[in-house]
């Protein structure tokens, strides 16, 4: 479980995060949503320890990050998996080498043990014959699946995804969303996803945190986002006619 208490983050004059508090539970897929510039990426980078908040605390299963020693921070980071928006695969390595990378860095497994594990996770993300391909030879959807495989290969406790389905067609985006949710359930991981894809919000948002101008404007689940009358949320989530209709139908069905 990740608990965030009153975190603040600024860059020079720009005050990006303004006292955000929330929590992300184990085994649940949580989404952080909001408009561009609302502070989602900065928030995620604070969770990852890439940015240090000026105020507030972030704790991982009770361990407050800012109070950890450098070694403890490094060990904690080894328990994190991250799927970057652009996949961030190492372009000098093959797909199998990319997935094997965390194992080579953090485990003492033999080559054959590592290869077995790589085979297993690549199968898990439905990539069977892609071991020897270079990332540049893979499609966007394949690259995302490789990034997910690399993120989960070392059995992380925490999985972070920055807009995992941006730039993907709707069908592939849904495959990626479902894959992340299945993996979260299967391995009981604390998963936090940055997204502004409303399909993801409706499909897999077991917990949703809505950020607006650096504040937490709303939090809830994909069930009660249909019912909320929070103006900031409705203006953002139901900005399209299609989602307005979906919402109307959902409310009518559940009345």
């Amino acid at each position: 479980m990740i608990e965030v208490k009153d975190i603040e983050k600024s860059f020079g004059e720009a005050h990006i995060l303004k006292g955000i508090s929330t929590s992300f539970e184990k085994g649940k897929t949580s989404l952080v949503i909001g408009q561009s510039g609302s502070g989602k990426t900065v928030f995620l980078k604070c969770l990852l320890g890439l940015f240090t908040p000026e105020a507030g605390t972030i704790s991982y299963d009770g361990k407050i990050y800012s109070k950890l020693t450098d070694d403890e921070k490094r060990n904690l980071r080894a328990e994190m998996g991250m799927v970057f928006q652009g996949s961030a695969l190492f372009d000098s390595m093959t797909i199998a080498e990319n997935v094997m990378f965390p194992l080579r860095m953090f485990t003492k497994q033999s080559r054959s043990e590592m290869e077995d594990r790589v085979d297993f996770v690549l199968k898990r993300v439905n990539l069977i014959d892609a071991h020897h391909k270079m990332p540049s030879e893979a499609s966007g959807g394949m690259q995302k699946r490789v990034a997910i495989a690399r993120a989960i290969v070392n059995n992380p406790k925490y999985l972070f995804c920055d807009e995992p389905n941006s730039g993907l067609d709707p069908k592939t985006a849904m495959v990626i969303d479902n894959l992340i949710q299945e993996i979260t359930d299967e391995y009981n991981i604390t998963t936090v996803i940055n997204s502004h894809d409303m399909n993801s919000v409706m499909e897999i948002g077991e917990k949703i945190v809505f950020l607006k101008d650096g504040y937490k404007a709303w939090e809830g689940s994909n069930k009660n986002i249909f019912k909320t009358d929070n103006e900031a949320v409705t203006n953002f989530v139901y900005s399209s006619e299609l989602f307005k209709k979906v919402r109307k139908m959902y409310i009518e069905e559940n009345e």
Partner: protein
Amino acid sequence: MQYLTNIGAYFLMIAEMFRKPTKWSVMRILIFKDIDDLIIGSLGIVSFISFFVGGVVTIQTALNISNPLIPKYLVGFATRQSVILEFAPTFISIIMAGKVGSFITSSIGTMRVTEQIDALEVMGINAINYLVFPKFIALMLYPFVISIAMFLGVLGGMAACVYGGFSTLEDYIIGVQTDFIPFHVIYAFIKTFVFAFLLATIPSFYGYYMKGGALEVGKASTTSFVWTSVMIILLNYILTSMLLS
């Protein structure tokens, strides 16, 4: 003020390069890869340039000696001195700042742009050690490249001298052997080690701390070439003053 900030950040990066070392089994592969990319991959261009510039130095020297009282072997002597003292260690380092330096800046810069460095940091890896240290170790073999440059420079001079009809082979060899001071080779290698350190770290600094997109990668490569060259020229002057004056 920005210059001071950059100088401070550069020295912090160097300190960080030696902290939290990457697992040796991984580091070993990175070092061999960088030796291949930075050292072996440079041998062709260094050999080509050294041979022909050695020849040009010889021709220029021979054409500028018109006084019949000056012995012919001076052509070999002048070529040897020019190649060992300045051409091989300094001129080749400037070329390497362009070839190797821009390769280092653009490869690390591209990793920054595509979030690969963020991926390393998220995994708890000391990205500076992982990326810069193998280049630093690989470039400790740079004196080997310079040895080849020295040999081929003198050889190119010999070929130009003999086949150009400027003097005989015997005269050239006598010139190359005349008043040889072994410390000059040591001086050249001391400079080479210092330049190797600059070649590994300055381009890495500009790649690692770059911000922006593809266009900025190109700008960072240019800036790194300029500053690596400036530092090589500046330290060449300081080291020459210290070691030969």
